[in-house]
């Protein structure tokens, strides 16, 4: 589920959450105290767990191991524009490309941005094509 896209200027996300086979609209983006922008995809409790750890300063060794199969990715965009992806662990992946997407719709969104679309347009396209994305779009900018 989910598509979160960053195009170097705007962080965009769809709103779909799946629970018991149903679709529910939720907000997936947040702005941290230091101004960083953040969005997550995957198992929602794990997303929150990782986002809380990031918001608390990313202290080494303090992110719990995932319970069972819980898996999440978090995209963190720092005020300087640096995009970091956390793939279910404490270790940031520094994305050097000017755009990046995570979530089940990431392939559609990445391709769209590669072809010149904005993050918002990329999320709209992913929402059209990916069965796990949709129900609206949220945007955040610095």
């Amino acid at each position, binding site marked *: *589920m989910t598509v979160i896209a960053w195009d170097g200027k705007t962080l965009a996300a769809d709103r779909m*959450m*799946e*629970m018991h086979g149903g679709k529910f609209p939720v907000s997936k983006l947040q702005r941290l105290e230091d101004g960083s922008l953040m969005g997550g995809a*995957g198992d929602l*409790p794990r997303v929150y767990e990782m986002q809380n750890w990031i918001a608390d300063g990313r202290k080494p060794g303090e992110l719990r191991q995932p*319970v*069972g199969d819980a898996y999440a990715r978090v995209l963190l965009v720092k005020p300087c524009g640096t995009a970091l992806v956390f793939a279910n662990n404490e270790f940031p992946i520094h994305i050097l490309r000017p755009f990046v997407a995570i*979530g089940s719709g990431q392939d559609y969104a990445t391709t769209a941005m590669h072809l010149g679309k904005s993050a918002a347009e990329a999320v709209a396209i992913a929402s059209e094509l990916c069965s796990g994305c949709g129900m609206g779009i949220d945007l955040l900018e610095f």
Partner: protein
Amino acid sequence: MPFTPYTFTSAQLTDIRRHCGYPALGDGNVVFPYPWIMKTYLALEYRLQHMSADEGNVVVNTYLANLTTLENAIPGTSANLDTDQAAVWTHNKNEQRDRDMLFDSWRRRLCNFLGVPPGPNFGGASNSLVV
């Protein structure tokens, strides 16, 4: 040299399917709507019918043996649920969770060894929130 696949017993096959998270196979008859349901099993069943003797021994002696031990230890944790602290011994409050995780970890290793994705029952009942 002709390849002779390892022959698992029916009980071993049942345990492998179960531990890998695949639902009960029943009689395996392919009748409507089973052509769709049976797709779930294809990779797993193919692997199980084409294991070498050495690979089959690893599955039985390393994985099934340990999984049986780990699985049997989980219900026993119910005996400790009423104890928070006894004498100087402190019960691990997360014993059941930790044992579940260890058990699931070994189930995942078995899937990896067999080269199949975890089955649809791997996560248990669907109460997840996914974004």
